[in-house]
């Protein structure tokens, strides 16, 4: 399974993804280090902000918690596709999804 990650330079990278890990972990494991993820996935930093560009047909993302909403709300580059990638658990339904790493805060 894979996801496509567009980095800040505009390049798209196919990234192998594992079920059960967060999107953030999958992106980091693939060596895309511009996704800072300073807090390691504990909803404390907003440095794993991505835009979800597209999902496979029928796929849905888990709803946002209030904490995630508040953190994203504080980001300058918020769009309606914004998510914190540490909060999205990857699974087969998301195989093929495309995301873009948001600008540095």
């Amino acid at each position, binding site marked *: 399974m894979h996801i496509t990650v567009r980095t800040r330079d505009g390049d798209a990278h196919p990234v192998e993804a*594992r079920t059960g*890990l967060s999107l953030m972990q999958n992106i*980091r*494991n693939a*060596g895309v*280090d511009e996704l800072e993820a*300073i*807090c*390691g*996935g*504990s*909803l*404390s*930093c*907003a440095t794993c902000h991505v835009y979800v560009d597209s999902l496979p047909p029928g796929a849905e993302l888990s709803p946002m918690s209030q*904490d995630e909403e*508040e*953190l994203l*709300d*504080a*980001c*300058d580059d918020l769009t309606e596709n914004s998510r914190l990638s540490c909060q999205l658990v990857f699974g087969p339904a998301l195989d093929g999804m495309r995301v873009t790493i948001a600008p540095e*805060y």
Partner: protein
Amino acid sequence: MTHGHYDCLIVGAGHAGAQAAISLRQSGFEGSVCLLGDEPVAPYERPALSKEYLAGKKEFARLLLRPAEFWPEHDVTLSPGRRVTAVEAEAHTVTCADATTIGYGALVWCAGGTPRTLHCPGHGLDGIHAIRDKADCDRLIAALPHSRRIVVIGGGYVGLEAAAVLSGLGKQVVVIEALDRVLARVAAEPLSRFYEAEHRAHGVELRLGTSVAEIVGRDGAVSGVRLAEGTVVAAEQVIVGIGIEPVVEPLLAAGAQAAPGGAGVLVDDLCRTTLADVYAAGDCAVARSGPGIRIESRHNATEQADTAAKAISGRPEPLRLVPLFWSNQYDLRLQTVGLSHGHDRTVLRGDPGSRSFSLVYLKDGAVAALDCVNTARDYLQGRRLVEAGTRVDPALLADARTPLKDMAESA
């Protein structure tokens, strides 16, 4: 006799050590890399120990910094369960507790710290815990089912986070702090008083301004804690959260320059120690350019290790760190940016009674740090003020309706 040689040997497999290995490969370092650590497990998220892991909300597999295959895939040799006892700087070798010797081209010292322990009578009884590594936490978790009353010694972040988790698990928790307020070493009084009120509201008892005279026991196990004034607080388990001692002895014995007051090993802005080809990062390293204290955080460990790795890879980038910290207690999310160390004024932004506010620390008129409680916006926007050292009129800072990002130099 030498048992192997690595172009880069990393000692300590916590956040700094793991990041050093990751960054070496990301920077294109092609030499051999060994990541040696004293724990039996692969590198993991340490801040979660006193939070989600203790609470049973996150299993260990989800705390691994990288999946097990990552290390061999990136040609990093993990060497768990080993401790370095001596560094031979001239020979470029280290000696381990198991008497093996390992050669290095570059050495990155990320050995972190060991928890400070009690020295009062009764300090050796069963049921006294630290929360520093997985094994510490596992011992504590195993003891919880048959424990009702728990004493936490030390009102710092680790102690308070543990108190929050344990009271959430239905335990009777008493926190003992030697100073007259919690978080006294890291935050100003309004933040301390806010957290004290929260803990009390959650049923945690706080004993401030009192020290521990003795750990009282029965049949070799803890039964209580005797305070200096004589009272005995009953407890089946005692958690000691009174800070760490940096693990730097082998480096200092080899001639590396120490930070004043035994705070750690001194490093420059490329994380070099004074020994040739020896770098240091994380809880044991003290930046020469900083305020002379250890910055004990995941963020600092990661940044320093990254800096060392880039320098070793021939791509030096001097570190200009703006520290970040966080602490989760109950439903309160504290995010800190900057260092309040040496501040001369604080400004409260928002009402602590609303459980969402920030405390801004000023030094010579410039924003030096912010403690943000349930105010992610202030944290993200305030980071810029700290980075730029912006001077802002305190009256403006106190106006919580004006976003920090709209605050330009005004004082």
